[in-house]
């Protein structure tokens, strides 16, 4: 089943082909919207949960363009030629884009406020799903019990073994502060100097600083590392494939991925119709059942089995022990911290 939907996703992506410029004329005839997506299993899950049912309901066709490119959002708005209407980005990125005037304001004639859940709207986008950035480890390497906190991740004596972290400055600093004993509600605004001091301790033990989701899975699957920072659905996918992988929710970072529409996108009316549809409980649940990123609409849990729910970032037991980053602080400081982090890595 998963494989078939995946193939369908590939076929749909292939049908769109290479870069495609949407002009005003082509869309008037067909009513098609273009969605910027991650490709692979992500797009396959979207295809089944959002695109197909939406087309059946409205007759509006959905085409996808992969992979997600934040820079293209800016390029499209600046050049006025659009490859896609909708994209999915993190909340902090959406906020920065909105400040630069790259995002279409919500069309309240189409989006119905009463049909939205609390916190659905942010920076002129709608909440898509919640993504966990977790500590994951190989159970077979720790028969006496694996690490349970970031302090354990930092503890080379109690938990020896190869480690890998996500090459992302804010996330790395966040985990370092938690490991250093900062209470969850005091992590933001960050004491950046303290975070880097703590990161100094772990740096020699980090075998790889990964940048891509596929790469992170390969590291844990092949046993290159024993524990690592990983996106929750990526880790769950490994466990589903039969690898002895355990996901830790304590101190995990939960960020919200947002849907946003490029300012001036030619199909924005139909795009808002689609987003209104996509944030409803049923499609959100269908997506979460396929890819273990959490629904943002609390009602969606009605359609999700307890076994799956326990693995989702927005499941109350998980969300309780995890940390939600301060989006505004992150948007304001990302560039600075990223520069310092990159320099720190290269030194």
């Amino acid at each position: 089943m998963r494989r078939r939907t995946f193939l369908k996703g590939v076929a749909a992506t292939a049908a769109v082909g290479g870069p495609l410029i949407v002009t005003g004329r082509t869309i008037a005839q067909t009513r098609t919207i273009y969605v910027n997506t991650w490709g692979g299993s992500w797009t396959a899950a979207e295809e089944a949960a959002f695109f197909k049912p939406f087309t059946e309901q409205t007759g509006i066709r959905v085409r996808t363009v992969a992979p997600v490119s934040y820079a293209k959002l800016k390029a499209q708005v600046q050049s006025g030629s659009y490859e896609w209407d909708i994209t999915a980005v993190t909340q902090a990125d959406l906020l920065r884009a909105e400040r630069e005037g790259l995002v279409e304001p919500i069309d309240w004639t189409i989006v119905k406020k009463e049909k939205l859940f609390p916190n659905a709207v942010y920076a002129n986008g709608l909440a898509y799903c919640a993504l966990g950035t977790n500590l994951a480890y190989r159970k077979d390497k720790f028969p006496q019990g694996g690490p349970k906190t970031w302090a354990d991740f930092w503890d080379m004596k109690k938990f020896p073994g190869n480690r890998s972290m996500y090459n992302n400055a804010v996330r790395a600093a966040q985990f370092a502060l938690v490991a250093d004993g900062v209470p969850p509600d005091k992590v933001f605004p960050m004491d950046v100097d303290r975070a880097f001091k703590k990161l100094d301790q772990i740096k020699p033990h980090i075998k790889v600083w990964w940048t891509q989701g596929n790469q992170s899975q390969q590291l844990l699957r092949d046993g290159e590392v024993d524990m690592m920072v990983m996106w929750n659905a990526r880790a769950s996918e490994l466990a589903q494939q039969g690898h002895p992988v355990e996901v830790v929710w304590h101190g995990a970072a939960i960020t919200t991925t947002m849907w946003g529409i490029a300012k001036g996108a030619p199909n924005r009316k139909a795009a808002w119709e689609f987003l209104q549809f996509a944030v409803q409980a049923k499609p959100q649940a269908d997506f979460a059942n396929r890819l273990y990123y959490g629904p943002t609409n609390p009602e969606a849990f009605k359609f999700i089995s307890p076994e799956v729910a326990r693995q989702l970032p927005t499941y109350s037991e998980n969300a309780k022990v995890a940390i939600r980053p301060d989006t505004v602080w992150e948007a304001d400081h990302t560039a600075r911290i990223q520069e310092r982090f990159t320099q720190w890595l290269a030194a």
Partner: protein
Amino acid sequence: MAGGLSPAATPGAELGVRNARRGQRAAWLLLGPPSLVLTLLFMVPIALMLVTSVTDPRLSLAHYQRIFTVPLYTHVMLNTFVTSLIVTALCLVLGYPVAYVMTRRTDWVSTLLLTIVAMSFWTGFLVRTYAWLVVLGSKGPVIAAYHALGLGGSPPKLLFTSFASTLGMTHILLPYMILALFAVMKKIEPDHLKAAASLGARPRAAFREVFLPLSLPGVVNGSLLVFVICLGFFVTPILLGTPRDMMISQLINQQIEELLAWGFASAVAVVLLVATGIILAVYNRFAGLDRLWG
């Protein structure tokens, strides 16, 4: 070529001038479209990039100041050039003998080598990069061989080192070098070497005095090709190397994709372009760029 301004003394000369003029016009007609394409798709964007680097987000030279004052950027820039030089040298040392054998042998050996090189050339570089992850990985054949030989102790760290990154890039760029060398070596007349031998040159002397100098355009061509492609590499060092092996294009990508800092990214790109230009100019001064075209 002063456009035929001198008065024609004889009818024959006038005809010659007219022919020359027609030839010139034809040349311009032929040059027109490619020049236009190059201007529109190459010169204009580069000019825009230059403008962006000093105007985005406001008119200032602050981006350039940052590049030369924050140690990270000078470090990455330097690393990019040093890595490219090392990879180019390795490709040349490894590729020259292969291209030589491919040229000198006329039988199946040559065909086999050419097939292998071409297949390697056509295999996607991402595939080859991931292949190295397996080969050098902790469950890969290299580590397995280490254990099988009973060398004892913990095996050396291969993956996620500068060594792995350099190895991967050399492997990916080697076919470019070999094919560039082969194209030039193939044109060297075998009779030249026979002539050298008939004049008493031993094989080694014939190679040194005749073949090597004639193959230099290929060396130059291949080296420049590999060097320039290497300057723009970034996926392979990310996947196989350490953060210390960061290349400049990775930095530019990060600025564009993650931070939307197009002004700064443009400034980095301009510095890279100018630095490459300087290298080519120095090279041109001492070796001559026209050698590139054989």
